[in-house]
Protein backbone atom coordinates (compact mmCIF):
# COMPACT_ATOMS: atom_id res chain seq x y z
CA UNK A 1 0.00 0.00 0.00
CA UNK A 2 1.28 3.48 -0.88
CA UNK A 3 1.94 6.12 1.75
CA UNK A 4 -1.16 8.05 0.70
CA UNK A 5 -3.29 4.90 0.90
CA UNK A 6 -1.94 4.11 4.37
CA UNK A 7 -2.67 7.66 5.50
CA UNK A 8 -6.26 7.46 4.27
CA UNK A 9 -6.73 4.12 6.00
CA UNK A 10 -5.53 5.66 9.26
CA UNK A 11 -7.89 8.63 8.88
CA UNK A 12 -10.82 6.33 8.07
CA UNK A 13 -9.96 4.10 11.05
CA UNK A 14 -9.77 7.08 13.38
CA UNK A 15 -13.12 8.41 12.12
CA UNK A 16 -14.77 5.01 12.57
CA UNK A 17 -13.37 4.74 16.10
CA UNK A 18 -14.67 8.22 16.91
CA UNK A 19 -18.12 7.42 15.50
CA UNK A 20 -18.15 4.16 17.47
CA UNK A 21 -17.24 5.99 20.67
CA UNK A 22 -20.01 8.56 20.06
CA UNK A 23 -22.52 5.76 19.37
CA UNK A 24 -21.55 3.96 22.58
CA UNK A 25 -21.80 7.22 24.58
CA UNK A 26 -25.24 7.98 23.13
CA UNK A 27 -26.56 4.46 23.66
CA UNK A 28 -25.19 4.25 27.22
CA UNK A 29 -26.99 7.51 28.11
CA UNK A 30 -23.82 9.17 29.31
CA UNK A 31 -24.97 12.71 28.50
CA UNK A 32 -27.26 14.09 31.19
CA UNK A 33 -30.37 15.68 29.65
CA UNK A 34 -31.78 16.85 33.01
CA UNK A 35 -32.94 20.46 32.85
CA UNK A 36 -31.52 21.21 36.29
CA UNK A 37 -27.95 20.42 35.22
CA UNK A 38 -26.71 23.00 32.71
CA UNK A 39 -24.75 22.15 29.59
CA UNK A 40 -21.01 22.57 29.77
CA UNK A 41 -19.95 25.92 28.31
CA UNK A 42 -18.71 24.45 24.96
CA UNK A 43 -21.97 22.50 24.45
CA UNK A 44 -24.03 25.56 25.41
CA UNK A 45 -22.03 27.71 23.00
CA UNK A 46 -22.51 25.15 20.21
CA UNK A 47 -26.30 24.96 20.68
CA UNK A 48 -26.60 28.73 21.05
CA UNK A 49 -24.60 29.31 17.88
CA UNK A 50 -26.59 26.71 15.93
CA UNK A 51 -29.82 28.34 17.14
CA UNK A 52 -28.74 31.93 16.41
CA UNK A 53 -27.37 31.14 12.94
CA UNK A 54 -30.42 29.05 12.05
CA UNK A 55 -32.79 31.86 13.04
CA UNK A 56 -30.74 34.55 11.30
CA UNK A 57 -30.57 32.64 8.02
CA UNK A 58 -34.28 31.79 8.01
CA UNK A 59 -35.47 35.26 8.99
CA UNK A 60 -33.36 37.03 6.39
CA UNK A 61 -36.05 37.27 3.73
CA UNK A 62 -39.01 38.07 5.97
CA UNK A 63 -40.62 41.38 5.06
CA UNK A 64 -41.33 43.45 8.17
CA UNK A 65 -44.62 45.40 8.12
CA UNK A 66 -44.23 49.18 8.24
CA UNK A 67 -46.75 49.83 10.97
CA UNK A 68 -45.11 48.02 13.91
CA UNK A 69 -45.24 51.24 15.95
CA UNK A 70 -49.01 51.46 15.50
CA UNK A 71 -50.55 51.74 19.03
CA UNK A 72 -53.38 49.36 18.03
CA UNK A 73 -50.89 46.66 17.09
CA UNK A 74 -48.88 47.22 20.27
CA UNK A 75 -52.06 47.03 22.35
CA UNK A 76 -53.15 43.80 20.66
CA UNK A 77 -49.67 42.36 21.16
CA UNK A 78 -49.65 43.37 24.83
CA UNK A 79 -52.78 41.35 25.56
CA UNK A 80 -51.42 38.32 23.78
CA UNK A 81 -48.05 38.66 25.45
CA UNK A 82 -49.58 38.85 28.92
CA UNK A 83 -51.62 35.74 28.25
CA UNK A 84 -49.23 33.56 26.25
CA UNK A 85 -45.68 34.69 26.94
CA UNK A 86 -45.28 36.40 30.30
CA UNK A 87 -45.37 33.21 32.35
CA UNK A 88 -41.97 32.27 30.86
CA UNK A 89 -40.56 35.56 29.54
CA UNK A 90 -41.84 37.70 32.44
CA UNK A 91 -42.71 41.39 32.21
CA UNK A 92 -41.77 44.71 33.83
CA UNK A 93 -42.24 44.44 37.60
CA UNK A 94 -43.00 40.72 37.43
CA UNK A 95 -41.16 38.28 39.68
CA UNK A 96 -39.75 35.08 38.25
CA UNK A 97 -42.29 32.30 37.98
CA UNK A 98 -41.87 28.62 38.79
CA UNK A 99 -41.81 27.86 35.06
CA UNK A 100 -39.24 30.54 34.28
CA UNK A 101 -37.01 29.24 37.08
CA UNK A 102 -37.16 25.66 35.87
CA UNK A 103 -36.88 26.05 32.11
CA UNK A 104 -33.58 25.16 30.52
CA UNK A 105 -32.27 26.88 28.58
CA UNK A 106 -33.75 29.85 30.42
CA UNK A 107 -36.42 31.75 28.51
CA UNK A 108 -34.98 35.21 27.82
CA UNK A 109 -36.50 38.06 29.82
CA UNK A 110 -37.88 40.14 26.99
CA UNK A 111 -38.09 43.37 28.98
CA UNK A 112 -34.34 43.49 28.48
CA UNK A 113 -32.94 44.90 25.25
CA UNK A 114 -32.28 42.38 22.51
CA UNK A 115 -30.03 42.12 19.48
CA UNK A 116 -32.74 40.28 17.55
CA UNK A 117 -34.32 42.03 14.59
CA UNK A 118 -38.10 42.26 14.23
CA UNK A 119 -37.94 39.64 11.49
CA UNK A 120 -36.00 37.28 13.75
CA UNK A 121 -38.46 37.82 16.59
CA UNK A 122 -41.34 37.09 14.22
CA UNK A 123 -39.67 33.90 13.01
CA UNK A 124 -39.11 32.68 16.57
CA UNK A 125 -42.68 33.47 17.66
CA UNK A 126 -44.12 31.80 14.58
CA UNK A 127 -41.95 28.69 14.37
CA UNK A 128 -40.79 28.19 17.96
CA UNK A 129 -37.40 26.74 18.87
CA UNK A 130 -36.79 23.02 19.26
CA UNK A 131 -35.90 21.69 22.73
CA UNK A 132 -36.24 25.03 24.48
CA UNK A 133 -39.91 25.02 25.48
CA UNK A 134 -40.66 27.79 22.94
CA UNK A 135 -43.80 26.74 21.06
CA UNK A 136 -44.60 27.46 17.42
CA UNK A 137 -47.45 29.97 17.79
CA UNK A 138 -47.87 29.97 14.04
CA UNK A 139 -49.68 26.66 14.34
CA UNK A 140 -52.62 28.38 16.05
CA UNK A 141 -52.23 32.10 15.23
CA UNK A 142 -52.16 33.91 11.92
CA UNK A 143 -49.32 36.20 10.88
CA UNK A 144 -51.16 39.41 11.67
CA UNK A 145 -51.61 38.45 15.31
CA UNK A 146 -48.00 37.34 15.52
CA UNK A 147 -46.78 40.64 14.07
CA UNK A 148 -48.87 42.38 16.75
CA UNK A 149 -46.85 40.45 19.34
CA UNK A 150 -43.62 41.54 17.63
CA UNK A 151 -44.86 45.15 17.61
CA UNK A 152 -45.30 44.86 21.37
CA UNK A 153 -41.92 43.16 21.84
CA UNK A 154 -40.19 46.11 20.12
CA UNK A 155 -41.84 48.42 22.64
CA UNK A 156 -41.45 46.23 25.75
CA UNK A 157 -37.90 47.23 26.80
CA UNK A 158 -39.01 50.87 27.07
CA UNK A 159 -42.00 50.16 29.31
CA UNK A 160 -42.24 50.75 33.02
CA UNK A 161 -44.31 48.42 35.17
CA UNK A 162 -47.15 50.95 35.25
CA UNK A 163 -47.12 51.46 31.48
CA UNK A 164 -47.11 47.71 30.94
CA UNK A 165 -50.03 47.18 33.29
CA UNK A 166 -52.07 49.94 31.64
CA UNK A 167 -51.36 48.50 28.19
CA UNK A 168 -52.43 45.02 29.23
CA UNK A 169 -55.51 46.28 31.05
CA UNK A 170 -56.71 48.13 27.95
CA UNK A 171 -55.70 45.45 25.46
CA UNK A 172 -58.27 43.44 23.56
CA UNK A 173 -58.69 40.03 25.16
CA UNK A 174 -56.86 37.19 23.49
CA UNK A 175 -60.00 35.06 23.14
CA UNK A 176 -61.84 37.96 21.49
CA UNK A 177 -58.99 38.48 19.03
CA UNK A 178 -59.01 34.81 18.14
CA UNK A 179 -62.77 34.76 17.68
CA UNK A 180 -62.68 37.99 15.65
CA UNK A 181 -60.19 36.45 13.31
CA UNK A 182 -62.14 33.22 13.14
CA UNK A 183 -59.16 31.02 13.80
CA UNK A 184 -56.03 30.58 11.79
CA UNK A 185 -55.40 31.58 8.18
CA UNK A 186 -58.84 33.07 7.57
CA UNK A 187 -57.76 36.43 6.26
CA UNK A 188 -55.41 35.63 3.48
CA UNK A 189 -52.32 36.92 5.25
CA UNK A 190 -49.08 36.36 3.46
CA UNK A 191 -47.09 33.75 5.36
CA UNK A 192 -43.37 33.54 5.54
Amino acid at each position, binding site marked *: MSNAGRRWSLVAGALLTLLGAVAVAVYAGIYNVAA*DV*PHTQPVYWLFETVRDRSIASRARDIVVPNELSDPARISSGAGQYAEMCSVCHLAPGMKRTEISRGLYPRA*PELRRKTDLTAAEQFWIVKHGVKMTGMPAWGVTHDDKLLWDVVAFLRKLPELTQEQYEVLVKNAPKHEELMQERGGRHQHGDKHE
Partner: protein
Amino acid sequence: MRKLPLRNTSLSLILIVSFAGVPLTLALGHEEHHAECNDTAINALKADIQAMGEGEAKTTARKELEAAQQSMAKNDTEGCKNHIHSAMEATEK
Protein backbone atom coordinates in the same frame (compact mmCIF):
# COMPACT_ATOMS: atom_id res chain seq x y z
CA MET B 1 -73.41 54.60 72.54
CA ARG B 2 -74.74 51.11 73.00
CA LYS B 3 -73.01 50.06 69.81
CA LEU B 4 -69.59 51.30 70.94
CA PRO B 5 -68.32 47.99 72.40
CA LEU B 6 -69.24 46.26 69.17
CA ARG B 7 -67.45 48.94 67.14
CA ASN B 8 -64.36 48.55 69.34
CA THR B 9 -64.49 44.80 68.87
CA SER B 10 -64.78 45.21 65.10
CA LEU B 11 -61.89 47.67 65.01
CA SER B 12 -59.76 45.32 67.08
CA LEU B 13 -60.64 42.47 64.80
CA ILE B 14 -59.69 44.48 61.70
CA LEU B 15 -56.40 45.53 63.29
CA ILE B 16 -55.58 41.97 64.36
CA VAL B 17 -56.37 40.59 60.92
CA SER B 18 -54.35 43.34 59.22
CA PHE B 19 -51.27 42.85 61.37
CA ALA B 20 -51.56 39.07 61.32
CA GLY B 21 -50.80 39.24 57.60
CA VAL B 22 -47.65 41.32 58.02
CA PRO B 23 -45.22 38.52 59.00
CA LEU B 24 -46.48 36.41 56.09
CA THR B 25 -46.03 39.31 53.67
CA LEU B 26 -42.52 39.92 54.95
CA ALA B 27 -41.72 36.21 54.70
CA LEU B 28 -42.95 36.10 51.10
CA GLY B 29 -40.94 39.21 50.28
CA HIS B 30 -37.88 37.64 51.80
CA GLU B 31 -38.34 34.36 49.92
CA GLU B 32 -37.11 35.95 46.70
CA HIS B 33 -33.66 36.45 48.21
CA HIS B 34 -33.50 33.11 49.96
CA ALA B 35 -30.26 31.40 49.02
CA GLU B 36 -29.39 27.76 49.59
CA CYS B 37 -25.95 26.26 49.35
CA ASN B 38 -26.23 23.03 47.40
CA ASP B 39 -25.69 21.60 43.92
CA THR B 40 -29.22 22.46 42.80
CA ALA B 41 -28.74 26.13 43.66
CA ILE B 42 -25.30 26.21 42.03
CA ASN B 43 -26.64 24.59 38.85
CA ALA B 44 -29.63 26.93 38.72
CA LEU B 45 -27.26 29.87 38.98
CA LYS B 46 -25.06 28.48 36.22
CA ALA B 47 -28.13 28.24 33.99
CA ASP B 48 -29.14 31.81 34.85
CA ILE B 49 -25.65 33.09 34.10
CA GLN B 50 -25.46 31.24 30.78
CA ALA B 51 -28.60 33.07 29.69
CA MET B 52 -27.23 36.51 30.55
CA GLY B 53 -25.87 38.87 27.94
CA GLU B 54 -22.18 39.72 28.21
CA GLY B 55 -21.49 42.62 30.53
CA GLU B 56 -20.52 43.73 34.00
CA ALA B 57 -23.44 41.96 35.68
CA LYS B 58 -22.50 38.64 34.09
CA THR B 59 -18.87 39.02 35.14
CA THR B 60 -19.94 39.78 38.71
CA ALA B 61 -22.35 36.84 38.76
CA ARG B 62 -19.62 34.49 37.47
CA LYS B 63 -17.13 35.66 40.10
CA GLU B 64 -19.67 35.29 42.89
CA LEU B 65 -20.58 31.82 41.65
CA GLU B 66 -16.93 30.77 41.65
CA ALA B 67 -16.53 32.18 45.16
CA ALA B 68 -19.66 30.27 46.25
CA GLN B 69 -18.25 27.04 44.86
CA GLN B 70 -14.97 27.63 46.67
CA SER B 71 -16.80 28.30 49.94
CA MET B 72 -18.88 25.18 49.40
CA ALA B 73 -15.72 23.12 48.90
CA LYS B 74 -14.43 24.47 52.23
CA ASN B 75 -17.76 23.63 53.95
CA ASP B 76 -18.28 27.35 54.60
CA THR B 77 -22.05 27.25 54.19
CA GLU B 78 -22.69 30.84 55.27
CA GLY B 79 -20.03 32.23 52.95
CA CYS B 80 -21.42 30.08 50.16
CA LYS B 81 -24.95 31.39 50.78
CA ASN B 82 -23.73 34.98 50.79
CA HIS B 83 -21.95 34.56 47.46
CA ILE B 84 -24.96 32.79 45.94
CA HIS B 85 -27.15 35.63 47.14
CA SER B 86 -24.82 38.19 45.54
CA ALA B 87 -24.72 36.18 42.33
CA MET B 88 -28.52 35.99 42.26
CA GLU B 89 -28.72 39.75 42.65
CA ALA B 90 -26.28 40.22 39.78
CA THR B 91 -28.38 37.96 37.51
CA GLU B 92 -31.41 40.16 38.13
CA LYS B 93 -29.67 43.37 36.99
